[in-house]
């Protein structure tokens, strides 16, 4: 698995460029409405795609995964902190699997 380090390096270089380039290049806001809109939507779409259905395949029982998704969504909707939402999801899975599994 020596090439694991190459994967890490590739991701590290790309993520660094993504973070650093705009700070050094842009002294004015981006003008293109399309690019601004696209960049605005990207994180929500990507994270949503990565969350579902992966969350129901991560747990021992699909039902506990669904319960975690629902309770996490409700907690996040009401602006609970990242840490609390993550804890709630974990707790819901743990407790429901005591019954389900």
């Amino acid at each position, binding site marked *: 698995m020596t090439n694991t380090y190459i994967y890490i390096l590739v991701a590290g270089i790309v993520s660094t460029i993504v973070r650093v380039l705009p700070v050094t290049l842009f002294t004015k806001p981006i003008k293109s409405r399309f690019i601004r809109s696209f*960049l605005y939507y990207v994180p929500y779409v990507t994270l949503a795609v990565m969350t579902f259905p992966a969350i129901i395949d991560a747990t021992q029982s699909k039902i506990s995964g669904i319960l975690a998704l629902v309770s996490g969504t409700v907690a996040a909707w009401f602006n609970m902190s990242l840490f609390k939402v993550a804890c709630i999801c*974990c707790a819901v899975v743990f407790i429901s699997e005591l019954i389900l599994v």
Partner: protein
Amino acid sequence: MKSFESKSNKQVFIEGIRDGFPIALGYLAVAFSLGIIARKSNFNPIQGFINSVLNHASAGEYAVYTVVAAGAGYVEMAIMTLVVNARYMLMSTALSQKFSSKTSMLHRILVGFTVTDELFAITIKRPGHIKPLYNYAAFLIAVLGWSFGTAFGIIAGELMPIRLVSAFSVALYGMFLACIMPEARNHRIVTVLIIISFILSFIASKASIFSGISSGTKTIILTVVIASVAAIIFPHPEVEDDD
């Protein structure tokens, strides 16, 4: 404003540590769950630690682990990292407006490197120009929580009972939900997009025509398609500028 600008370096540094500390605690727990995923992709604790220091992005690192687990190529790794971290371009662009003209290019580059969702949030909330020292302090403590959390997750994932592994494995998804839902609450179009994303992602994971494509590539395709269509049909209103 005057007194704010004249704070000593030491004061600024301490403020950074103070604000970074709760973030570090949250990162420790979330990175632990990331470590469990890293373990499944055969990462050792040192590789997980290095990946977390260099990438310090939940979704970005998650992408690394899924791409490695799928045995996909370096090009896919690069494109995937670009797509899942594209939001940092927006944040970095926003930060570029908050630097004093006196700030050197080196400081701009280093502050850019420290951008994460949470560090961006605490930076943008501060009045006045960016104090690079503040960001370095907050980043330092936060990235320690993040990187050690990943390494611990890889080490302890093995020792933990399966019930706990199962429970911790959803922490990351909980964090993703915490990143997207507050915005969904304020913008109905984001809510609609999240629902569409869930549905299409589900279909893509089940439909046989997509079975030959890795999950990383599916994420890229779905993101570019959905976000592009949304950007054309619903150009984003310029409200994001007033923070």
